[in-house]
């Protein structure tokens, strides 16, 4: 494309990006109107990030969030034609944001918001029910590979923030704000079950068990991984808990199902 229309497109983008009067050749009175489009863009960006990172927003307040959203937009504008999943780099952005250094665990809270969104929007798949394994021979069972449900996200964080995240996600004034986060590792599982996103903080053995399954281990191998992470772990309890959660999917046997 060339000519006046291309020049107009270019000038309009410069105008909404904050340049003073790039549209003079195309409009006699640009100021007022341009402000509306500029505000609309920022408001679309801010509301997409606010709906995708509600716990972060509640934690930092509206004014800080708006300013962070504007800076993020400059750094990582949307590159796809829907804002439903906008902000995939927002957690890393918050890690590095100088204004956020007084709340160094903000990025960890953002990672949980992100995992919630991913679980919410993930593809459908039938979840494994406890009864599905009851009919299987124990030896075959140990060789079975059980994938996680496509919505399941195992998130390891550098801060113990799961309770803080949950409280800020609840939109419930009666939920008391937990004390400051501790700089310790914490692993959480988020997954979607019957249309609703579920979440919980995982003990070390559970985390190791689920990660092993996610990496293609057999059920037996994942049990061994759980014991390596915590020798005192009760593996059959972990298996039962994982089965009843709905966070596991489709089963396949190493040598086929014979």
């Amino acid at each position, binding site marked *: *494309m060339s*000519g*006046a*229309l*291309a020049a*107009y*497109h*270019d000038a*309009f*983008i410069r105008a*909404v990006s904050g340049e003073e009067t790039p*549209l003079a050749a*195309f*409009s*006699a*009175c*640009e100021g*007022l*109107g*341009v*402000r*509306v*489009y500029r505000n*609309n*863009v920022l408001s*679309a*960006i801010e509301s*997409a990030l606010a709906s995708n990172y509600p716990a972060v927003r509640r934690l930092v307040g509206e004014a800080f969030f708006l300013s962070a959203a504007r800076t993020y937009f400059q750094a990582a*504008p*949307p*590159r*796809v*034609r*829907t*804002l*439903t*999943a906008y902000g995939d780099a927002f957690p890393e952005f918050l890690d590095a944001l100088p204004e956020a250094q007084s709340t160094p665990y903000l990025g960890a809270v953002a990672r949980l918001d992100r995992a919630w969104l991913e679980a*919410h*929007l*993930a*593809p*459908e798949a039938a979840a494994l029910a406890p009864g599905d394994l009851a009919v299987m021979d124990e030896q075959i069972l140990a060789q079975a590979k059980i994938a996680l449900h*496509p*919505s399941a996200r195992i998130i390891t964080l550098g801060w113990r923030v799961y309770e803080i995240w949950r409280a800020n996600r609840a939109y419930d004034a009666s939920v008391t704000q937990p004390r400051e986060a501790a700089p310790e590792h914490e692993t959480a599982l988020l997954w*979607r079950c019957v*249309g*609703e996103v579920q979440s919980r903080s995982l003990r070390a053995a559970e985390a190791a068990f689920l990660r092993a399954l996610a990496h293609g281990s057999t059920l037996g191998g994942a049990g061994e991984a759980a014991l390596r992470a915590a020798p005192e772990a009760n593996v059959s309890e972990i298996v039962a808990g994982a089965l009843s959660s709905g966070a596991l999917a489709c089963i396949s046997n190493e040598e086929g199902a014979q």
Partner: protein
Amino acid sequence: MGLPPSIAGVGLKSEHYRAALESTADGLWFEVHPENYMVAGGPRLAWLEAIRARRPVSFHGVAASLAGPDPLDKAHLTSLRALVSRFEPALISEHVAWSAAGGVYYGDLFPLPYTQEAARHLIDRIDQFQIALGRRILIENPASYLTLRSDMSESAFLAEVCARSGCGLLLDVNNIYVSANNTGFDADAYVDAVDGGMIGEVHIAGHEADSAVGRALLIDSHAAPVAAPVWALYERLIARIGPRPTLLERDARVPPFSELMEERARAADVLSATREAA
């Protein structure tokens, strides 16, 4: 396919999924922005599927950027085609606007000057878009906040684009009112001049005065009930062209579903009065 001309629909909001599914209103239909459903799975697709099983649905796209500088976005077209084949919308519409440049999506509808060059550009891209979807689309007149130097009026521009691309018009009466106020044309004359044969759907919605300068600048916010002068324009249009599928849009400060349905009933009254008069 198509929608019954004498029945009004409402924009489907996630807050209203259950009420929308359970509504027993005769002939009710819904409109959605397909971009909100460009996801792999999850509850929103499940709700739309359940609602679509009972009701006609219309797709009102916001991100094709038909008047924009970038080539049509292949990934967007692929997602849209998949949704069209899954939900079989009764109508597909888009905007006379652009929203992406240099690979960046801005999430708003930007204006274009009404020049011969812009008309040719838009016609060419509507043509590509209709071929990609294998469907005729409707294009919606924008809400304008900026007066751009143009060769022709908006209504003449739209008439030319529709005639030469073969698409139809989604006439947004609130946008006419807002743009007339903001850019200084006569809304009644616009409504009286538009060719009724092009119009496949009508939108009605609420606007509000700009928080800084007041009514000199009206914002197409979809955050309020339809204003009295917009109802008057709507009645004027329908009295002249006859009934058209009419959609009530509400996107912010969303009231309970029952309240939207009461507002929709007013549009239904206008449509049935015209049908009886005809």
